[in-house]
């Protein structure tokens, strides 16, 4: 169990030396998102099913498994990205705090301001500047006050370890950044809205190893600020970064299912299920 045994918070975790922000200790460990019997089907064909687990506050939960096991499909169900696909059906219950994500009374637009997403390939808006990208989410949600926009932009760019390189050229186009920097901009953009949960869909698979390493470090640092659910192909990345893991595997009916969910350390050393053991030992990929 990766309980933070912090009674005295380490300085780097809780006080941002650049901005002076203080993040007081908040109780970790209680579930911020609860999935129960979640399944996603497209035009009647199930893509992923039997998913039940809890996502704990300000932990990093990784969805791992070979390709085709439904990890990304499951992730996208969490912020209702399947709403635009007419043939998609999501069943089961997904709770975000007290909110039923798929209740008819829940507005998807508002939901997405609470559950953010970072995509596999960096997708900054090309016609907008760095600053405009960072505050894009805020503007979409109706925030107009410049003070709040500036504050959120700076805070999120600092959190994404981008502030120092871009603070003097906030008006430059996002396309002038390198791939790794663009992905960090996308992370900042998602963070600026202060979501409760941040979904990351293989955020480093399109980046070179150095950029990947920096973003992994970043993800570790972000933990204190926002709960993260990350889909990753890369077992080592899951081991390095996550607190808990959900292992999914494609079953015989070609649908992905949740095989095992546990603390990362346990899942990788003494998993309960033989299939999990095979996967983490690299016997299939």
């Amino acid at each position: 169990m990766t309980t933070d045994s912090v009674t005295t918070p380490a300085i780097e975790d809780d006080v941002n030396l650049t901005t002076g922000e203080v993040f007081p200790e908040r109780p970790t460990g209680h579930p911020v998102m609860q999935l129960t019997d979640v399944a996603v089907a497209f035009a009647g064909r199930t893509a992923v099913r039997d998913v039940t687990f809890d996502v704990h506050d300000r932990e990093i939960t990784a969805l791992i498994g070979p390709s085709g096991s439904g990890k990304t499909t499951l992730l996208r169900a969490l912020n209702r990205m399947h709403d635009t696909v007419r043939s998609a059906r999501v069943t089961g219950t997904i709770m975000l705090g007290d909110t039923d994500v798929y209740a008819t009374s829940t507005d998807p637009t508002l939901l997405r301001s609470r559950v953010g997403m970072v995509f596999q390939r960096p997708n900054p808006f090309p016609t907008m500047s760095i600053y405009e990208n960072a505050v894009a989410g805020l503007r979409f949600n109706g925030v107009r006050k410049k003070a709040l926009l500036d504050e959120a932009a700076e805070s999120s760019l600092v959190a994404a370890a981008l502030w120092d390189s871009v603070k003097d050229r906030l008006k430059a186009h996002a396309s002038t950044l390198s791939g790794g920097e663009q992905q960090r901009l996308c992370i900042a953009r998602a963070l600026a809205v202060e979501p409760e949960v941040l979904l990351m869909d293989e955020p480093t698979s399109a980046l070179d190893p150095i950029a990947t390493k920096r973003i992994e470090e970043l993800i570790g640092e972000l933990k204190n600020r926002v709960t993260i659910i990350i889909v990753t192909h890369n077992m080592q990345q899951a081991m390095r970064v996550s607190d808990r893991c959900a292992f999914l595997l494609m079953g015989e009916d070609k649908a992905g299912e949740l095989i095992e969910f546990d603390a990362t350390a346990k899942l990788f050393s003494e998993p309960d299920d033989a299939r999990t053991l095979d996967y983490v030992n690299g016997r299939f990929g």
Partner: protein
Amino acid sequence: MSVLTFDPSGDPILERRRQIQSIAQASLGRRKAYSAVALGICWVFLVLAIIPLVAVIVYTFAKGIVAWNATFFTQVTKPEGIPDGGVANALVGTVIIGAVATAVTIPLGLLGGLFLAESDGRVASGIRFTADLMTGVPSILMGIFGYIALVKAFGYSGLIGAFAIGMIMLPIIMRACETAIRGVPGHLNEAGLALGARRFMIARRVILPAALPGIITGVLLAIARGVGETAPLLFTIFGNQYMQWNPTKPMDALPLVIYNNSSQPYPDLLQIAWGAALLLMAMVLVLSIGSRIVAARLQRERR
């Protein structure tokens, strides 16, 4: 310079989150309403766009179908006052002029298209750009060009009308051929070269058959455009009240009949105009739909 303030009593993240959420919730209604209105306007515009386009076709059909009878198709045009007018001569003219123009522009367009597809230099770029521009030249200019270039010397004739129409069709066919040929997978060409075949044979036996659907699509569209044109014919074929099968003489054509009768106050001439309009529109639509069917078949075969 940082705009953040140090607030030791609160968690700035949670505070900002609370602020943002409250703004987001408060503005949700307004934002959704705005979106619904804007999208609604898009739908309205969609309907507004469809209405006139449908109206033209329906109206032309209604007015024109009345004119279609045996007389219409078998008799030649007659001036006002003389009964039993038809468009037989104009139909013949349109078909013959269209056929002549097509017969000339297909080979030329094919050669030009092959040239463009196989060349990448500045000259080729220039010709390509010119061809694109020429497809947009006002067709009246082709009419007066045809007049000054050929009618002065040879008199009015269907051939000169075909020439003017051909000038409009040629760049269309050239570009369509080029696009179709470029669309043929490169490995077919390479396989031919590897076998030691000459470029001409490769083009003839491999590339052109593979590009045929795209070429046919382009040709059909070009013909649809060509037979629908009026302005290039006005000063080149002159019109002819009698049946004329010889393209070296002045001829009549459907667009001319429509144009000339449009401004006449006589109802029976107007009726002929509507009948001719329906006929012309039907021909053009059949060619266009035909080209789409060929294009669709092309897509399916490529899968």
